[in-house]
C-alpha cells in the first residue's frame, strides 16, 4: 500500500529527532490469532499520545510490547532511545506504567505503597524521601498518608498509582485506561495534572475509551481489529478525506423531536448518514443539497428545525466513519480471499 509506505518514510524522518517511542511494523501473534498487525507510529517527546480503539482491538497488547512484557513477533520498537527487543531491562528503568486496575497493595498504607515502589526502582533513602515529598505535594496525598490503599476512593487510588509510577522520575509514562471507573471530577483533575506534567517535558502514552479525553490529546492514534487506521493530531484527523468524502458536508440540525426527525432525515435522498447528538442531529449530506431546502423538506413532514448549520466532525464522527469504512474494506478483503 503506497499510503503505508509514505507513512513509514515519515516515521524514519522523525526518528532523527529522537522521539520518545518509535514503533515500526509491530506484529504480535498468539498462535494463529494476530493481535497486532503491522502497527507503526511515533510518539514525540512531551506529547500526550492518545491510543484509542474498541475493547479487544489490541491496545493493551501494544502497551505490553512497548514495556517489554510481551516479546514482539515482528517489527521494531525503540522506547526512550532503547531497543525493546534487546534492552527491555533498561527500558523498564526509564518508563512508568499504570495499569487499569492501579496495581496498588490494598493492605499497605499510602506511604508504604510509595516506599515499596521507590525501593523497587532502587531509590536510595535520601532520594526516595525527596521524591515522595514531591509526589505527595503534586498529588495532594498529604492527608491520606497513613490510610490503607483499600480505603481510598477511586480518584485517590488513581493518584497514588500515578505517584507510584512516577517515583523514579521517568520521562515516559504508559497509562492504560487511567480514568476507567473514576468520577468526572477526578477525571478532570487527572487530566489537569497530565497537562501540567507534559508541560514539564514528560511524555504520556494514554489509552482511553472517552472521546472527550481523546480530544484533549495532542496526538491520537486509533487501532481497530489489530490495525492502526488513524494517526494524527485531532484536527488533522477531522480533515481526513475519508471522514468527509469529496462532495459532502457535515451539518448539525437542532430540533425538539430528535428521534422522529432522525427517522425522516434518513429517508431524504442526499443525506448519507445521520446520528442523534443530544438535542440535535449530525448528518453527512451531499454538497448540492440546499440547507433551506432541507429545512423545508423536514418541515413538510411536521419537523420544526430550529437551526441548521455546517459542522466540523468530532473525533467520534472520525472514528465511526473510519470504523465503517474499515468494516467495508474488511468485508471486501474476505470476499477477495474466498474468490
Amino acid at each position, binding site marked *: 500500500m503506497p499510503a503505508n509506505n509514505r507513512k513509514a518514510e515519515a516515521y524514519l524522518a522523525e526518528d532523527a529527532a529522537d522521539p520518545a517511542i518509535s514503533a515500526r511494523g509491530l506484529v504480535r501473534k498468539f498462535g494463529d490469532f494476530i493481535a497486532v498487525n503491522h502497527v507503526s507510529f511515533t510518539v514525540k517527546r512531551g506529547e500526550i499520545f492518545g491510543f484509542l480503539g474498541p475493547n479487544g482491538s489490541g491496545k493493551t497488547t501494544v502497551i505490553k510490547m512497548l*514495556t*517489554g*512484557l*510481551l516479546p514482539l513477533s515482528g517489527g521494531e520498537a525503540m522506547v526512550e532511545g532503547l531497543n525493546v527487543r534487546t534492552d527491555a*531491562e533498561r527500558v*523498564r*528503568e526509564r*518508563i512508568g*506504567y499504570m*495499569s*487499569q*486496575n492501579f*496495581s*496498588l*497493595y*490494598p*493492605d*499497605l498504607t499510602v506511604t*508504604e505503597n510509595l*516506599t*515499596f*515502589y521507590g*525501593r*523497587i*526502582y*532502587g531509590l536510595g533513602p535520601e532520594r526516595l524521601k525527596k521524591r515522595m515529598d514531591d509526589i505527595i505535594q503534586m498529588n495532594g496525598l498529604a492527608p491520606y498518608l497513613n490510610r490503607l490503599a483499600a480505603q481510598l476512593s477511586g480518584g485517590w487510588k488513581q493518584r497514588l498509582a500515578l505517584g507510584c509510577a512516577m517515583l523514579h522520575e521517568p520521562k515516559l509514562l504508559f497509562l492504560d485506561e487511567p480514568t476507567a471507573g473514576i468520577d468526572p471530577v477526578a477525571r478532570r483533575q487527572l487530566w489537569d495534572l497530565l497537562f501540567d506534567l507534559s508541560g514539564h517535558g514528560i511524555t504520556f502514552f494514554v489509552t482511553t475509551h472517552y472521546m472527550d479525553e481523546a480530544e484533549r490529546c495532542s496526538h491520537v492514534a486509533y487501532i481497530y481489529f489489530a490495525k492502526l487506521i488513524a494517526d494524527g493530531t485531532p484536527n488533522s484527523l477531522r480533515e481526513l478525506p475519508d471522514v468527509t468524502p469529496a462532495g459532502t458536508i457535515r451539518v448539525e440540525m437542532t430540533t425538539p423531536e430528535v428521534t422522529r426527525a432522525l427517522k425522516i432525515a434518513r429517508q431524504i435522498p442526499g443525506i448519507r448518514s445521520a446520528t442523534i447528538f443530544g438535542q440535535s442531529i449530525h448528518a453527512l449530506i451531499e454538497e448540492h443539497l440546499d440547507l433551506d431546502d432541507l429545512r423545508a423538506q423536514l418541515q413538510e413532514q411536521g419537523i420544526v428545525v430550529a437551526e441548521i448549520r455546517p459542522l466540523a466532525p468530532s473525533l467520534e464522527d472520525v472514528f465511526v466513519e473510519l470504523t465503517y469504512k474499515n468494516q467495508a474494506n474488511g468485508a471486501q478483503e474476505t470476499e477477495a480471499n474466498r474468490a
Partner: protein
Amino acid sequence: MRDMFRGFRAVFYKETLHVRRDFGTLFFSLIIPLLQMLLLGYGIDTNIRQINTVVFNADGRQESRELLDRLKNSDTFHVIRYVNSDQQMNNMIIAGKAHVGIKIPVDYSDKLLHHMSAQVLVLIDGSDSSVAGQAINVTTSIGLDESLRRALVNNETFAVDMRPKLLFNPDSRSPNFFLPGLTAILLLNVTTFLTAFSIVREKERGTLEQLFVTPVRPMGLLLGKLLPYLGIGFFELCMILTFMRFAFRVPMHGNVILLAFLSLPYIFVSLSLGILISSKANSQSEAMQLAFLTILPSIFFSGYIFPLETMPRFFYALSYFVPARYFIDITRGVILRGATIVHLWPDAVALFTMGTVLLAIAARRFQNKVIMA
C-alpha cells in the same frame, strides 16, 4: 550477580508488611497445625491393646480359668462377655461386637491331667489385619509358653531364651513414632500454602504484572517473597517441637539445634514448591488444589504412615522425589535415635538440591510464562 537479585530488599520489606497487616490469617494458619497435631497425637494409637473378646468357657475348671487369666493379663484382650454356646459366640463376632472369640472345650482340664493335647479354639475376625495379626501372635505364644511350662515339670530352664528388646522407643508409644513424621507433613502444609497464596494473590490483584514492568528480577522477587515465610516456617517448627516435647512427652534423644538447622533446607523446599505452584495457578482455589496434590504423596510415599521398605519398587523409587521422605528421616533420626550430622547430611544435601532446582524452575517460568499472561 547482585543484579540477578534486584528488587529483593524491596519485596522483602513489602512482604513483611503484608504478614504484619494480616496477622489474623497468619495466626490461624499457624495454630491449625498445632490443633491437628493434638487430634492426631491423641487419636492415633497403632499399638493394639484391649481387643474386644468374647469367651465361651465350656470347661470352667481351674486350669481353664488360669489360661483365661493369662490371656487377659497380656493386655491384648478385653473380655466383654462370657457366653454359653458356640452360636452366641459366633453372633457376637458377626455383629462386630467382639473381634476375638475364645472357646475352651469341656474336656480341657481332663486332657491336661491325662497329659494329652488339649485344644483351645480361637476365632479371629480377619477384617482388620493388624488386629488379627496381634491376636494370633499373642494367643499362639501364650499357648506355646503354657505347653513348655507343663512339659518342663521340674523347673528346668528353657533351652533357648529369646529376649527381644526395643531400641529408641522402648514403650512402643505411637506418638513417639508418629509425631516426628507429622511434623514434616504439617510444616509442608503451612509453608507451601502461604507462599503459593502470597504470589497468586498478586496475580489476582494485577500487582504482579505491575512488578514485571519494574526492573525487579525474578530471583529478587521470589527470594524476597520466600525469606519472610522461611522465618514463619521456622517459627512454626519451633512451636511444633515444643508441643511435641512437652504436651506429648516425646523424648528428644538428639540435638534439637541440629534438628532446627536441618529443617531449614526442608522449609526451603516446601516454599519453593509453593512458588512453583503459584507460577501455574491463576487463582487461590486453583493454588489450593495443586497444593493438595503435593501433600498426598508426602503423606503416603514418605514413610510417614507406610514403611518405605514394604512398598512396590515403583513407589519406592517415587519416594526419592518426595521431600518429606528426607525430612522424616531427619526428624525420626534426631528425635528418636539421636542421630547426628554424620548420619543425616545426605538428607540435608538432597533437600537443598531439590529446593534450588524447584526455585530455579519457578524463576524460569516467571521469566518466560507469567509475563505473557
